């Protein structure tokens, strides 16, 4: 039974495509044929875990949760295991796995913003005054040089 709990929750985190493989491993480890309704057990546990995680941390007290599980006729060791996992250290990673799951609905949020402010100095249709001034100055210098070399030669 505890194996089933662990496997179910691991399946939640890792989201393997082939759940049958996990169940077959589970069968081999136990050395005997697993109960016939293993699929339903897994689905049931999955639903409980999913419903619990949707509530958000701190909404449901452990004692209340334990009593609810016992009312649902879950065995005691199962209750202990569930509380251990769902209130324990793995809880944040489960929440993160849920967020990353593409099937959970949530609003889009801005992840990153990169920006740039450019000042255009020159373009096809307009050359700014500063460039015109520079061009005119250079042309004048070139003219002077030309005159000088003509005089010398």
């Amino acid at each position, binding site marked *: 039974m505890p194996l089933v709990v662990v496997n179910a929750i691991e399946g939640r985190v890792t989201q393997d495509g082939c759940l049958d493989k996990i169940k077959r491993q589970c069968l081999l480890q136990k050395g005997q044929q697993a109960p016939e309704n293993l699929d339903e057990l897994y689905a049931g546990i999955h639903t409980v875990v999913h419903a619990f995680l949707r509530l958000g941390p701190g909404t449901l007290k452990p004692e209340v949760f334990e009593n609810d599980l016992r009312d649902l006729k879950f065995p005691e060791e199962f209750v202990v295991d569930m509380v251990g996992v769902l209130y324990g250290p793995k809880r944040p990673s489960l929440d993160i796995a849920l967020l990353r799951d593409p099937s959970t609905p949530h609003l889009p949020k801005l992840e990153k913003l*990169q*920006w*740039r402010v*450019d*000042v*255009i*100095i020159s373009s096809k249709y307009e050359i700014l005054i500063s460039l015109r001034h520079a061009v005119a100055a250079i042309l004048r210098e070139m003219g002077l040089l030309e005159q000088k070399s003509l005089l010398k030669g």
Partner: protein
Amino acid sequence: MSATLDEISNSKIVDAEWNFGVTASSSEMKVVGTTYLHLKLLVESGNGTIKTLHFEMTLPQFYSFLHELERAKSSLEYLT
């Protein structure tokens, strides 16, 4: 870039626009103060659709681009 080359092999340049500027400010500190050349080419493909190609390059990239164009020009003149 090479994928674009395949796309435009049957097209011709209809119009070209450029602008040259300086990055005054940015979220990335290292590009602030750098110059860039922005080139926009209007390309018409075989079936008449017009596509705009945007390029942005630094000054050394522009010089090598110009060099390549001059090489292309001289080989065209040599062949015709």
